């Protein structure tokens, strides 16, 4: 078993295109998706990120923070999961209802590196 982070990457607010009824349905699908992962013991946590916030960066030796560029891709939330291998993690990502509902989003699947020994 290996742990993975699935980052939901979106541009702007992809959910905006949904009507209230569609949104309701989408939430229901999301709840089923998450419920199934829990039942299988594959979900460690999942949290949405607020669209506000800032980016800290080194600009010419000075640490500056600036707002996100709304048109650029940002991380809208994450799923912290457990899977047998990257293939299964990919399958889990593909099953996310954002794809079924054709929302403008991508999911980045990244294995979490675990400690292999301490160098001292």
């Amino acid at each position, binding site marked *: 078993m290996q742990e993975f982070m699935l980052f939901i990457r979106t541009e702007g607010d992809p959910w905006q295109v949904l009507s209230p009824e569609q949104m309701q349905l989408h939430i229901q699908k*999301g*709840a*089923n998706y*998450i*419920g199934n992962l*829990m*039942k299988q013991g594959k*979900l460690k*946590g*999942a*949290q*949405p990120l607020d669209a506000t916030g800032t980016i800290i960066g080194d600009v010419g030796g000075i640490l500056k923070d600036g707002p996100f560029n709304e048109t650029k891709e940002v991380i809208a*939330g994450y799923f912290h999961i457990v899977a047998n291998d990257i293939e299964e993690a990919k399958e889990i990502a593909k099953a996310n209802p954002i794809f079924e509902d054709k929302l403008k989003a991508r999911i980045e699947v990244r294995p979490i590196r675990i400690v292999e020994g301490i160098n001292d």
Partner: protein
Amino acid sequence: MIAVLTRIFGSENVELAEDTVQDALIEAINHWTYKGIPENPTAWLFKVAKNKALNILNREKYKKQHVSDVAHYLQSEWTADPALNYLFSDQEILDDQLRMMFTCCHPSISSDSQIALTLKTLCGFSIPEIAKAFITAEENINKRLVRARQKIRENKIPFEVPQAKDLEKKLNTVLETIYLLFNEGYSASKGNDLIRYELCEEAIRLAEIIETHPAIQDKSNVYSLLSLMQLNASRFKSRQDNEGNILTMAEQDRSLWDYSLIEKGILNLHKSTVSNHVSVYHILAAISGCHCTASDFDSTDWQTILLLYDQLLQLDPSPLVLLNRSVVLSKVKGPQFALEELKRINTNPSLKSYYLFYSTEAEFYINMEEYDKAISSLKRAIELSHLKAEKSLLQKKLDRLQKKA
């Protein structure tokens, strides 16, 4: 419901879980008296409890700490709702009840407190009900509960089913507590009969939860305990006459026995013998089974029962077992033989002050028609017995004897 909430809040907050359920019930009753009982009261109640759980976790106090693994789920917008549905699903409720049993029956908690906490959290008994069942003051029950919760906090007793190595030992403690609970209900005729029978039913229900649970693999002891309790409970209603006098096995009206329970008990007894392991429960269940399957007192298979008692002695060589065995011995080999046996054990201090020793002795003398000796034994038994129903049973016997002698 308390079990599920304990999982959410963590075992150190078991009282918070109890209070939350209490709140939800009060809210439900207020709402229902005002608006009428909803179509699905259980679902309604769960919904109230779910909301209360979320509100509590969102309080500042708990925001900073992950009180349990699942509390993390409940604090995220994406996972809170699915997590609540998952936690309140039938399978998870069963799992949590099993976890709760292991938490309540942790060996570091005294058995009095174990039973009180089990009744409060798993059987939905209120403090006054528990006090009534134990014929003690509510204050005492409250003290036992406080001590139990304190132990859970101090020893950081987890809310989980123990791992393989620990499981067998801890499961035995849970089974012992269940058996004690059963015996509280079954023994003698003190207190309210209805409540006492409920204790027996609850003990059986808890054992059934363990029996159906896939996490427990070696169920030999579970089956045998379940069998023992079902077989004994089947005779519950025939043990007293209408005036509340205790009836002996020979006097009981066997048509009052609960034959569907006997059937279940025998079935579980068979299941318990699949492995070669033999526990005290196995033998006691088999003995009870012999009584339950005899069509009348005279056709009781005393020979087999004696063999079972011989086996029981090897596992539990206590004076009480010896005493009970002597009764069987008198049926198989005659009262003279049984009396000799009694003489061998009558130096035991705990038996010397036990009324059943003398009433048993009296019974043997009666069989041998030595009425004077029987009368003096009976008098001693009456002196030592504490319960009204027992005293009156012995007194009746004495009156009959004195007419004869």
